[in-house]
């Protein structure tokens, strides 16, 4: 099997998706920062007519960071990790290369057009599922092509055992496929109204409480299979590889995998506490959310223990810092979520800023940190060059860490203040505050969040610059580094 002396991994697809990750990351976070600023300074809503309003931009933010940035990151890392742990090069199959490239272009053009469509207000108005049905079809084709890539590579592998990361990517593929199809079932209003409606505009096939249930089964599991499962897959590869330490307990990784699969799918109804869905479903959502701490912390602790005896690496390798911080934030948000899912806490937390606070300690601290760390690790291998600047990386790390802390602390205070004010009653049972009272009180926290957005975005630009310089002028490497990523 070692006869192919010239055989090398083919990183061309990883590179392409890395570029998209950076592009969509920048766009999505730019829009995130703009909408954060709009909440603090509402005049900013009126700069670009209808195209610049919060309501147009918010879905652009969410869809671009989820389906643009994160999904590109998943693809970029799959085409890297997949080859390496299966010990087979993409270059060995013309067919898989073709499928990969086809998928790349379809995805790139589709994602750009979909974003533009949201800007023009073409939306099916379901959260994280706003794309209208023609785009849904493109998504399905891209996803199937990705599935062919994944299964195809597995089919021609040399390594018989599937490394744990591969399981996670497989689960991501299957999970999203199932969720996306079921939640996006829709009929163009043209067909539902005997020609009065619009062919492009569709309504969901579900209605009322059923629609809410399907929507949050989807919404929550999109977090599971988009923001958790593939990111865990990444850290299970990159942290051991970067540190030179095998996973602390492979058995624990298997167990957490099945635990996560089993528990996550039932937790979605915590988004619907105190609503019209059956009581037992709400209770189930709460209970499973609390149980979810176990498999989540199982993976996170497994990662931290992987560093056992090697903690000195934390101080001298900024990449390890990124990944350890990422798993720490993963632990924070997976303890915070279950707390919010307890009925009585949810009565205060629901509809408040604490929720976006929770979302962003997860995505900014965990998802983005891990994806950036992955790209930092892959870059010297893909471009055969040393990382351009370690100093810049350190500076970026601290700037963004402070930004995340500012984001979630300001939203914790804002959210709990809001929740308490909404429900405060005087001795006669009258509400003590009107809505605008809460808005006035929250202004400073919104301003802090906008500032944290600017800081995080600047950090992301430092990252993009560092990668760009690595590509173009990093010191050339004569051979691929084995473990620790070389940096100047």
């Amino acid at each position, binding site marked *: 099997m070692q006869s192919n002396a010239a055989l090398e991994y083919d990183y061309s697809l990883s590179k392409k998706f890395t570029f998209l990750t950076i592009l969509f990351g920048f766009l999505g976070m730019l829009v995130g920062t703009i909408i954060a600023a709009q909440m603090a300074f509402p005049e900013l809503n009126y700069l670009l007519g209808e195209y610049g309003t919060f309501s147009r931009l918010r879905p652009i933010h969410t869809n671009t960071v989820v389906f643009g940035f994160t999904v590109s990151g998943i693809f970029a890392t799959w085409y890297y990790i997949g080859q*390496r742990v299966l010990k087979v090069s993409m270059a060995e199959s013309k067919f898989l290369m073709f499928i990969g490239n086809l998928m790349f272009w379809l995805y790139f053009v589709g994602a750009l057009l979909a974003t533009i469509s949201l800007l023009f207000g073409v939306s099916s108005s379901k959260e994280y599922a706003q794309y209208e049905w023609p785009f849904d079809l493109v998504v399905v084709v891209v996803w199937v092509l990705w599935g062919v890539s994944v299964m195809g590579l597995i089919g021609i*592998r040399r390594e018989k055992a599937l490394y*744990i990361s591969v399981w996670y990517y497989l689960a991501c593929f299957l999970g999203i496929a199932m969720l996306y199809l079921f939640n996006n079932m829709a009929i163009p209003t043209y067909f539902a109204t005997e020609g009065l409606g619009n062919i492009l505009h569709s309504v969901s096939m579900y209605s009322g409480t059923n629609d809410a249930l399907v929507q949050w089964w989807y919404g929550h599991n999109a977090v599971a299979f988009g923001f958790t499962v593939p990111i865990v897959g990444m850290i299970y590869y990159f942290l051991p590889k970067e540190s030179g330490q095998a996973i602390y307990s492979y058995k624990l990784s298997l*167990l957490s995998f099945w635990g996560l699969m089993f528990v996550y799918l*039932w937790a979605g109804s915590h988004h619907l506490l105190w609503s019209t869905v059956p009581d037992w*479903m709400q209770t189930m959502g709460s209970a499973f959310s609390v149980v979810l701490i176990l498999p989540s912390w199982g993976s996170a602790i497994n990662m931290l223990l992987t560093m056992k005896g090697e903690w000195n690496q934390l101080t001298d390798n900024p990449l390890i810092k990124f990944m350890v911080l990422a798993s720490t934030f993963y632990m924070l948000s997976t303890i915070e979520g279950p707390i919010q899912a307890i009925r009585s806490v949810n009565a205060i937390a629901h509809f408040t800023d604490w929720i976006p606070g929770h979302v962003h300690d997860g995505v900014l601290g965990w998802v983005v940190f891990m994806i950036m760390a992955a790209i930092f690790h892959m870059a010297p291998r893909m471009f055969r060059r040393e990382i351009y600047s370690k100093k810049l990386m350190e500076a970026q790390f601290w700037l963004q860490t402070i930004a995340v802390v500012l984001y979630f602390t300001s939203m914790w205070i804002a959210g709990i203040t809001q929740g308490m004010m909404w429900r405060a009653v005087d001795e006669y049972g009258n509400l003590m505050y009107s809505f605008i009272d809460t808005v006035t009180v929250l202004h400073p926290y919104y301003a802090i969040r906008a500032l944290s957005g600017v800081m995080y975005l600047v950090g992301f630009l430092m990252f993009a610059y560092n990668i760009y310089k690595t590509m173009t002028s990093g010191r050339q490497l004569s051979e691929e580094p084995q473990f620790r990523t070389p940096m100047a």
Partner: protein
Amino acid sequence: MDMDLRNLQGYASFAMSIFLVVMLYWYIIHLYRSEKKGERDYEKYGKIALDDEVTSTPVEDKPASEREYKEENK
């Protein structure tokens, strides 16, 4: 106790949860037992990430006959 469909769904979900919990615990036992009996060594798979050159020896080799493509340019 009225047994309409909603209630039935509730009980079915409860029963399934219990079943899956049992499966999960069984899985833990299975993992440890098969290692103890020497049938499997799960921890060796951790090496797949560390020794991952295309020329590295696989931790578990997939025989060429099982590979679904022809080995070219030998």
